[in-house]
């Protein structure tokens, strides 16, 4: 078990090197390079740009720049934002709570949908419940998340007026409503629509995996043996089959959880949710490369780390994996 995890961890090191090189080259291959934002500004003189280029070390060979960037990045020194001069790290950190709140709630909602749908559809394979949910799941993975968000805004915010269309709190509520019942309600009302989008789209993908995994498990001899011992259907499914079927699905859930933080780019932008996804679109609009590079590196690293964690989880649920 430990050697398995040690090996998987060591394998991620070259992977992270390749990823960092991809991210670095992408930014530096851009016309105008990282200073593109100043090139288009008529108030910045060419000699200023040249001075800036030297000050930032952009006149050095590419591999030296890459090395010093990587060294600084691993030390936690992510530089300053090009658009407002603040520390990249603090700009990112201040968005983390909103992102975690949105993604965490969405994962819970998605799991609450996935578990019953995936289990029942797998057990009742081919019956009406399975057919309806399977088609719905294909529709769900085909659904453009941003359009789903726009539709919810049209219906629930603009036509019916039941829910706020965007933001995390109502204006004024952030101060006066903090900690009060009204503040909490306001917060939940803002969460409802974006969480519906992310929750439904994720549940569509996950329930397909769980259904397939359930069907595969139910065909195994040990399930037949449980039936033969006279266990009620409920116990066979929930105690024996589910324990076996859930391992691979949980691994996928973990990896997707890391992806969700960046995959929420569309949903956060539609609902003006002040998380990391919105920070990304804002930084992109301003060509704020230091923020973009840090965000891309962080999410990629998170995905790699979550991949290893998912393997670990999978190995705990099913120890054969580690061998």
């Amino acid at each position: 078990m430990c050697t398995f995890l040690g090996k998987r961890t060591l394998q991620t090191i070259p992977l992270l090197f390749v990823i960092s090189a991809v991210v670095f080259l992408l930014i530096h291959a851009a016309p105008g390079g990282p200073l593109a934002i100043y090139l288009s500004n008529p108030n910045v003189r060419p000699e200023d740009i040249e001075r800036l280029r030297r000050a930032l070390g952009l006149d050095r060979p590419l591999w030296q720049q890459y090395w010093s960037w990587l060294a600084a990045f691993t030390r936690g020194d992510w530089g300053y934002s090009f658009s407002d001069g603040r520390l990249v790290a603090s700009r990112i950190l201040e968005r983390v709570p909103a992102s975690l709140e949105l993604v965490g709630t969405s994962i819970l909602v998605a799991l609450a949908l996935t578990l019953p749908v995936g289990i029942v559809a797998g057990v009742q394979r081919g019956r009406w419940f399975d057919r309806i949910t399977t088609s719905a799941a294909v529709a769900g993975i085909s659904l453009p998340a941003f359009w789903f968000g726009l539709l919810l805004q049209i219906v629930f915010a603009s036509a019916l007026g039941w829910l706020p269309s965007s933001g995390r709190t109502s204006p004024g509520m952030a101060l006066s409503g903090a900690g009060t019942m009204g503040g909490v309600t306001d917060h939940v009302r803002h969460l409802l629509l974006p969480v519906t989008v992310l929750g439904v789209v994720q549940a569509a993908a996950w329930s397909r995996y769980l259904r397939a995994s359930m069907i595969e498990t139910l065909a195994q001899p040990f399930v037949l043996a449980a039936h033969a011992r006279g266990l009620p259907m409920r116990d066979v499914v929930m105690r024996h089959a589910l324990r076996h079927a859930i391992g691979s699905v949980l691994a996928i859930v973990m990896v997707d959880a890391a992806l969700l933080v960046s995959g929420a780019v569309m949903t956060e932008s539609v609902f003006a949710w002040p998380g990391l996804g919105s920070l990304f679109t804002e930084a992109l609009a301003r060509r704020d490369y230091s923020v973009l590079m840090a965000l891309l590196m962080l999410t990629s690293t998170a995905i790699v780390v979550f991949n290893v964690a998912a393997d670990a989880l999978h190995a705990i649920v099913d120890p054969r994996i580690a061998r």
Partner: protein
Amino acid sequence: MRLPALVLASLVGAAFAAPAIVRYPPDHLDLDARRQPPSAAHWFGTDDLGRDVVARVLYGARVSLGVGLLSAAVAGISGTGIGGVAGYAGGALDAVLMRGTDAMLAVPRLPLLMIAASILQPTVGVLVVLIGLAGWMETARVLRAEFMTLRTRGFVESARAAGAGHARLVMVHLLPNAAHALIVSVTLAVARGILLESALSFFGVGVRPPQASWGNMLYQAQSSLTTEPWLAVAPGLFILITTWSVNLVGDGLSRSRSSQP
């Protein structure tokens, strides 16, 4: 699988025959009929410049379907190349190529494409290549796995023993037997390509106005959601119907193989 295939065929047909079907050109401005809700004259209404939404959706279908199909072709070809070499050669080359594939899979696709598209300001052709190059990893993995198992099968070994060269082994023995898995994976890449194009255009870095694509029509609709909600309905519905049909066809294709002996 038949119904979604039929839906797809009629969508492609309608996109081709767009000039014969629509009553207004997609860039026809009618300033007396701006912001009209759906009516007999304009089935899906008109936008802020009085352009007919039906016409724009059908002309947009040419762009969206074209980008989806061609980007899947780019993804399929590059994925076949990389996965094929890795699976056939094995050893160190395989290890290097697969670590690269893992690395690409770990970088979130949409943000990466958004950065690349905002830097390059691509034409539709360049957009096809970008989306295709961001989507080769799945195909590469599928093809590598197929080649790895096929390589050890008896008929391939006997062909090698009979003196077949690398090119003949790959083209005659390996590729045709991996074709089914390849087709399924490219089908899924079509749906992904259409969704990615619409997302990029929705963020204003994909297909640029005045050329219509389903994604940039939604981008435009977002600014007048409360006053002209109908502008957001038709383009999104077409994206959903198309990707849903493509995914159903892909599911049907992969099932048709597992039912084979």
